[in-house]
């Protein structure tokens, strides 16, 4: 079906909806479309002419009368005519109880399933830590900041669990009560995530202390109109500094599991599943769309879904700039200043394929410019170019240097996870999926030097608002950390996504020569800018200026507002919007996705494929 046919069918649909005569077909293709249109309409018309024999209404009345009889038979007073103000609440409750048996039974079933899964997960986690982490706590010297919290209290469930590590059944039996299981897991957690460790875990009262939005070197670019620049100068020095606690963000969660501790084997994550400690469950399927590719559709989506509480960014104009070396190979991590006169309005950094993206209308100072001066900084070399606005959308510039890549491709991969209770049902599956991903990525044929980061967030008044775990190059250690994640808190919308995103972008020690990716997995939208000092749209643009791609993964239940935010973040960072899919064929999605525009696959396969694609630009000849 070509575009002309699609447009003709749209005109037919419009006419049908308005009750107008169908527009005549002008070509053979249109005649074919018209015939198909009529046939489809005939199917609908036939369905609408469903015949239900008249007796069905009698059946309804019979059931109603029967119910009313039992109602009165139970001693309810017969109201005199006016049926609305019935006051016998108990009687009404009985009646409704009978009617709602189906739904109640289903709900009970779901609750039992969820609790069962949570109990099993808690027991599995307890076993994991008693078997793996309890011995680790005694091996080697823990990081200094963790010392005080590493030792487990004698007699705690974790300590006793260590003595019972050979019997999973015993542990399960001991933890049938949910509260007990939760306590056990908390007690067994390593220091950096234990709520009792004073310097760790972001507490509400600390978060409420003044936290200035770090605009890094952009100096108020979001509203002040001076533009965006990345702040990752040199060899990541600033980023390293940012990872250190400061007066403003003294609540950073520091450290990862003890480096000197005995490390589990490479297949530890998979082993967890194979041993049944993490129950193997059906893999999640997902699809992805590139809103920069179907940009017209994306703009329609933005117009349709825009609301005052969201943070619209004017992306209607895009300037794609690609930097190539002397041999036409993409130059990654090359800074590109977009200037109006001498004023830098945006600093982009090229992704692994050499592209960077600037939205001129999103920056007030750039909005009226007729051209931009570009300064491309590749090592010591400075190259100047000019872009005439309105001429075209994509530009490629070749600079007279030879690309120099690290001996092995570097990959910094961060998982930014919503760990509020609404994610509880999916968190275990996510753990399995991410464990699989981390295994697969670490074994890619391109043999990248991978580091994994983890950032968690919840909401105000929860156990923590956000936690940042520094990059970890040992996949097994990362998997251990990940396996400790549980979901709790939240309970309403939105969640503190914007805090997690801000800290991911600004506080992790990203390597300057790495391919930088964030996978944001969540099912809720962030708080609006009026409710805090952070702005997800600002941080998405900062991410773009640092060549960090943020791939949002929409989990079940993501609202329309959430979808708007997720797709904005993806588009701004030249990433793609990922969404879980459902149904036997894996093609069902609640999101506004053009049917047939995606190919469902398992989530882990999809993410590994994306990682592979991101690294493809760095392949050596």
């Amino acid at each position: 079906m070509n575009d002309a046919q699609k447009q003709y069918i749209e005109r037919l649909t419009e006419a049908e909806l308005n009750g107008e005569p169908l527009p005549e077909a002008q070509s053979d293709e249109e005649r074919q479309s018209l015939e198909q249109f009529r046939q489809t309409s005939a199917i609908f018309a036939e369905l609408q002419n469903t015949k239900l024999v008249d007796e069905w209404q009698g059946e309804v009345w019979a059931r109603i009368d029967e119910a009313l009889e039992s109602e009165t038979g139970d001693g309810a007073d017969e109201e005199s005519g006016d049926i609305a103000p019935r006051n016998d609440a108990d009687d009404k409750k009985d009646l409704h109880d009978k009617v709602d048996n189906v739904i109640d039974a289903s709900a009970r079933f779901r609750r039992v399933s969820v609790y069962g899964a949570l109990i099993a997960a808690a027991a599995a986690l307890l076993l994991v830590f008693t078997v793996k982490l309890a011995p680790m706590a005694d091996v080697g010297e823990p990081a200094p900041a963790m010392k005080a919290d590493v030792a487990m209290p004698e007699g705690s469930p974790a300590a006793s669990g260590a003595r019972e590590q050979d019997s999973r059944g015993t542990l399960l039996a001991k933890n049938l009560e949910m509260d007990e299981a939760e306590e056990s897991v908390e007690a067994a957690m390593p220091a950096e995530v234990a709520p009792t460790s004073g310097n760790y875990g972001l507490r509400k009262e600390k978060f409420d202390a003044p936290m200035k939005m770090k605009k890094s070197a952009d100096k108020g670019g979001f509203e002040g109109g001076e533009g965006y620049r990345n702040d990752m100068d040199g060899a990541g020095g600033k980023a390293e500094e940012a990872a250190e606690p400061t007066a403003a963000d003294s609540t950073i969660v520091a450290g990862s599991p003890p480096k000197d501790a005995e490390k589990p084997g490479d297949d530890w994550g998979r082993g967890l599943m194979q041993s049944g400690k993490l129950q193997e469950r059906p893999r999640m399927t997902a699809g992805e769309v590139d809103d920069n590719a179907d940009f017209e559709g994306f703009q329609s989506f933005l117009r349709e879904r825009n609301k005052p509480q969201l943070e619209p960014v004017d992306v209607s104009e895009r300037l794609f700039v690609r930097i190539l070396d002397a041999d036409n190979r993409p130059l990654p991590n090359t800074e590109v200043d977009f200037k109006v006169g001498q004023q830098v309005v945006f600093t982009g950094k090229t992704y692994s394929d050499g592209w960077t993206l600037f939205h001129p209308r999103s920056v007030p100072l750039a909005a009226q410019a007729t051209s931009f001066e570009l300064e491309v900084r590749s090592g010591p070399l400075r190259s100047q170019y000019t872009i005439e606005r309105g001429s075209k959308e994509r530009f490629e510039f070749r600079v007279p240097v030879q690309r120099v890549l690290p001996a092995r491709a570097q990959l910094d991969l961060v998982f930014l996870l919503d760990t509020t209770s609404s994610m509880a049902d999916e968190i275990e599956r996510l753990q399995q999926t991410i464990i699989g991903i981390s295994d697969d990525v670490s074994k890619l044929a391109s043999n990248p030097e991978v580091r994994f980061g983890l950032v968690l967030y919840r909401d105000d008044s929860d156990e923590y608002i956000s936690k940042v775990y520094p990059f970890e190059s040992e996949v097994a250690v990362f998997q251990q950390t990940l396996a400790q994640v549980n979901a709790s808190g939240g309970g309403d919308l939105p969640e503190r996504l914007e805090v997690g995103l801000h800290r991911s972008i600004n506080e992790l020690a990203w390597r300057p020569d790495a391919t930088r990716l964030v996978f944001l997995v969540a099912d809720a939208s962030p708080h609006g800018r009026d409710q805090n000092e952070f702005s997800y749209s600002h941080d998405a643009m900062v991410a773009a200026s640092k060549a960090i791609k943020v791939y949002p993964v929409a989990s079940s239940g993501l609202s329309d507002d959430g979808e708007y935010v997720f797709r904005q973040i993806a588009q701004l960072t030249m990433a793609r919007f990922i969404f879980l899919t459902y149904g036997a064929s894996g093609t069902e999605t609640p999101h506004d996705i053009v049917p047939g525009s995606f190919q469902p696959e398992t989530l882990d396969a999809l993410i590994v494929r994306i990682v592979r694609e991101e690294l493809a630009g760095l392949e050596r000849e």
Partner: protein
Amino acid sequence: MTEAEQVNPTTEPVRTTPQAGERLSEDDTRVWFEELMKTYGKRVGSYFLYRTGDEEGARDLVIETFFRAWRARESFRGEAKASTWLWTIARRTLAAYYENKTRRSPEVLTDEMPDMAAPEEMPVVERTTRQALLDCLETLNERVQRSAELVWVLGHSYVEAAQIMEESADSVRMRLKRARSPLQRCLTEKGIVGSQA
């Protein structure tokens, strides 16, 4: 005449619909409910038939829906449209039906259903066609699917569909315009519609 009636003259408003806050006498409630069944019974039946592909099941679900509607009649205060209210009940009834099927314990629902044989004069849309339509509509995202169900399967005007979905008529209209092409392509691929009549 409302916009809805202009667009879809077959829509028959329920005459005795309670106004906001109004409480009807028992007799008036019965009249209102009778008209409700007359007005929406066929649409609800179409919806269930299209979703289940099972004539007998669709009929049972219609009965169950209206029975539930009666039980929930006090929740209808006339503030929303009767179709919106009834549509919500229908969707919940269907959800319970599917949950039962998933759990393979149909007795929970069917125990309350009258035992009826499928009448011979049931709709003539073939099972394969219905299933193909169901499959094709399910490739659309949920909002598009709901819009299509309301307008094309249930016969609501897009204005009514918009009211039910609590959004603008323009949104529904735009969505349906975009949906028809992929739907038609899908039906063509499945051999349900073709260039020859």
